[in-house]
């Protein structure tokens, strides 16, 4: 694998195909352009979700009504959840960095079905538009929480139908992306790139794609049933007609728990690329990480019941789900040990992506260990539906996936845009963001333990102190976010031209020019016996 600086012809950002201007982007089947389309659309939705989160935190600055009434608060957390889960963290890393980098990492020209890939993005946009319709038109924004629990989801007078349908369409987009990636990874690896040499980010995308493919249809049909319930009254989840609302919860979590692993697995994959690169050392326990990825994907299917310990379930089922929940924590811990061991005796190059990766490990551990508190039966009864749960899943979903997303962004940025960002500002952005994050969510662990319930716009006087700190944290976090975005946007246009391989990484995407040419490789790469994604010496 030798590197070349030769830039021949236009790269994927500048070339002109059949259409000009914006049309050349939204009708492009180039995986890199589609990746950027996802990046911009997901970033927009993330900013929207952040604003809603900010509004909720502002409401909780003081007891009683601060800026909104109870109904508005209910709608705000519902929409915040729907946007963040279905439009940001689930597609997040796979749709953005999977599209941008995965085909190059396996030495392919594109994904297996480029047109299907474009269709996935269009479905994503259609889903977004549908959900926005639910917000803007009709009889008020949905107020059920992002889980659309029955029977309230077909009793509420708010405009829920477009939101449910939008979530269904977003699921379909996710399924098609997963299908595309599975076929791509099976069929389009370059000669010499055996399964045992596949970069770990690609491995995690592979595990994720299976979950997308096999879990999403279950929630799809469940949402269809809710919609039919609302329109025709088929009775499937309506206790008045003999239906069972708890069955809805089962079907919902059969997808939505594996979906947590859709969110976190590619994040772990990105971290598994970044840590060896900035340690200049072979990843520790390559095969153990693969095995843990696949076992997370598998066992993750069988733990959905831990969302429903208080919903009414037999004791036997509770023991079973609790035990499996503890078991699924093991492969995650294996990964953490592997990352730490990779750093041991490495020549560590401290750069922005490395800061993000290390802080990812920290917040992921806090999130993961607090998850065990919720996974054990006795303690779950105590903290169920409190701020503790909110803190736990924000540490995992926002701290885990979000930090990994920023890590990946700062890692692949020079490759994507061909320019380097301002490293000093990037570090400042990371620091401010991290301080804000810790201040925002850590008090919620305490508040939850003290008994503050989630999803109320009001609280008792005794919770005031912790909530002030949390709200202040939200402001610091947003300040950090603005610094990061401004720095990246400015650098994408005006930054210093980036080298082919600024971090001295060994994976294939760093052998092509920055930004990559239209068809990625001048000629198909071939991996020799001694080449590998982490062979640093």
């Amino acid at each position, binding site marked *: 694998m030798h590197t070349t600086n030769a830039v021949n012809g236009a790269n994927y950002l500048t070339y002109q195909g059949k259409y000009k201007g914006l049309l050349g982007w939204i009708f492009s089947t180039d995986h890199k352009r589609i990746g950027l389309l996802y990046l911009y659309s997901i970033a927009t939705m993330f900013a929207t979700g952040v604003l809603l989160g900010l509004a909720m935190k502002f409401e909780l600055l003081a007891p009683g009504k601060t800026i909104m009434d109870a109904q508005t608060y209910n709608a705000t957390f519902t929409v915040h959840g729907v946007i963040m889960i279905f439009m940001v963290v689930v597609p997040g890393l796979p749709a953005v960095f999977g599209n941008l980098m995965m085909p190059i990492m396996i030495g392919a020209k594109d994904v297996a079905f480029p047109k299907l890939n474009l269709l996935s993005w269009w479905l994503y946009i259609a889903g977004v538009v549908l959900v926005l319709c639910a917000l803007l038109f009709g009889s008020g924004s949905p107020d059920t929480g992002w889980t659309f629990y029955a029977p309230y989801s077909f009793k509420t007078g708010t405009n829920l139908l477009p939101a449910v349908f939008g979530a269904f369409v977003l699921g379909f987009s996710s399924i098609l992306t997963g299908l595309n990636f599975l076929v791509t990874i099976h069929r389009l690896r370059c000669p010499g790139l055996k399964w045992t040499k596949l970069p770990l980010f690609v491995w995690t995308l592979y595990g994720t794609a299976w979950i997308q493919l096999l879990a999403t249809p279950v929630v799809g049909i469940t949402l269809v049933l809710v919609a039919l319930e609302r329109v025709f009254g088929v*009775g499937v989840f309506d206790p008045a*007609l003999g239906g069972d609302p708890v069955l809805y919860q089962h079907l919902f979590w059969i997808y939505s728990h594996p979906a947590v692993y859709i969110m976190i697995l590619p994040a772990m994959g990105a971290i598994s690329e970044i840590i060896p690169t900035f340690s200049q050392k072979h990843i520790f326990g390559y095969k153990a990480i693969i095995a843990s990825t696949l076992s997370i994907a598998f066992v993750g299917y069988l733990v959905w019941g831990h969302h429903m310990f208080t919903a009414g379930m037999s004791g036997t089922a509770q023991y079973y789900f609790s035990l499996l929940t503890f078991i699924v924590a093991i492969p995650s811990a294996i990964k953490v040990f592997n990352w730490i061991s990779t750093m041991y005796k490495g020549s560590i190059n401290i750069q922005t992506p490395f800061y993000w990766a290390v802080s990812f490990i920290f917040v992921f551990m806090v999130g993961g260990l607090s998850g065990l508190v919720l996974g054990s039966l006795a303690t779950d009864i105590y903290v169920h539906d409190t701020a503790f749960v909110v803190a736990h899943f924000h540490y995992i979903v926002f701290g885990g996936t979000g930090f990994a997303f920023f890590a990946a962004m700062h890692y692949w940025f020079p490759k994507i845009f061909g320019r380097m960002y301002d490293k000093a500002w990037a570090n400042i952005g990371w620091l401010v963001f991290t301080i804000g994050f810790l201040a925002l969510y850590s008090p919620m662990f305490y508040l939850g333990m003290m008994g503050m319930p989630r999803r109320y716009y009001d609280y008792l006087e005794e919770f005031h102190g912790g909530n002030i700190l949390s709200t202040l944290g939200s402001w610091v976090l947003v300040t950090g976010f603005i610094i990061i975005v401004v720095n990246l946007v400015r650098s994408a246009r005006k930054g210093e031209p980036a080298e082919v391989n600024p971090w001295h990484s060994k994976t294939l995407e760093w052998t092509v020019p920055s930004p990559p040419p239209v068809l990625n490789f001048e000629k198909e790469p071939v991996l020799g016996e001694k080449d590998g994604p982490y062979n640093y010496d």
Partner: protein
Amino acid sequence: MAEHQHVHIEHPDMYDPESSKIGMWLFIFTELLLFGGLFIVYSVYRYMNPDAFHLAAEELNTFIGAFNTVILLVSSMTIAMSTTALQKGHKKVAIALVVITFIIGIGFLVNKYFEWGVKFSHGIWPGSEQMLNEMSQGEILFFGLYFVMTGLHALHIIVGLVIMGFAIRGVANGKVNAKRPSLLDNCGLYWHLVDLIWIFLFPLFYLIH
């Protein structure tokens, strides 16, 4: 330089029959889990209301159900034969066989239309007065699921017919041929799936007593 970076470069010819086949199989897995969710719902409610499900199933016409099963099985055979015909280069035979499959699919929908029509004329549809006032909860659930599951299956039949339309056009204009058979192959795979799901729906609603 940008001159030779034109249209065709964005669509490198990546035709790979193996990829298409894997892609279709993966899509079939997704479909199976989509219906899987409904089968779970069905089993749970059947377990909770065994008598009502038995009673409600008596309402269904086993003859039409069995007839539809038989013609769908025949259609699976004809579409499989058309794939083979195409492999052997018999273009016209292949087209004729897909057309036969298409007609059988339409026939299935016509039967379904009359079947549902009879239910409607008896006042049975989700949320109808008759159901809410005279039926037990178990019967309401049975018919709710009956309409949802057979309706979703009928939707799949329609999708299958649309794909067949494309396959017929492809074979006719030569874009789908013995060397590039993927569209017809995948059309066949999809049709088998639609058939397979019916094979499960038929006994669940019409036969088990």
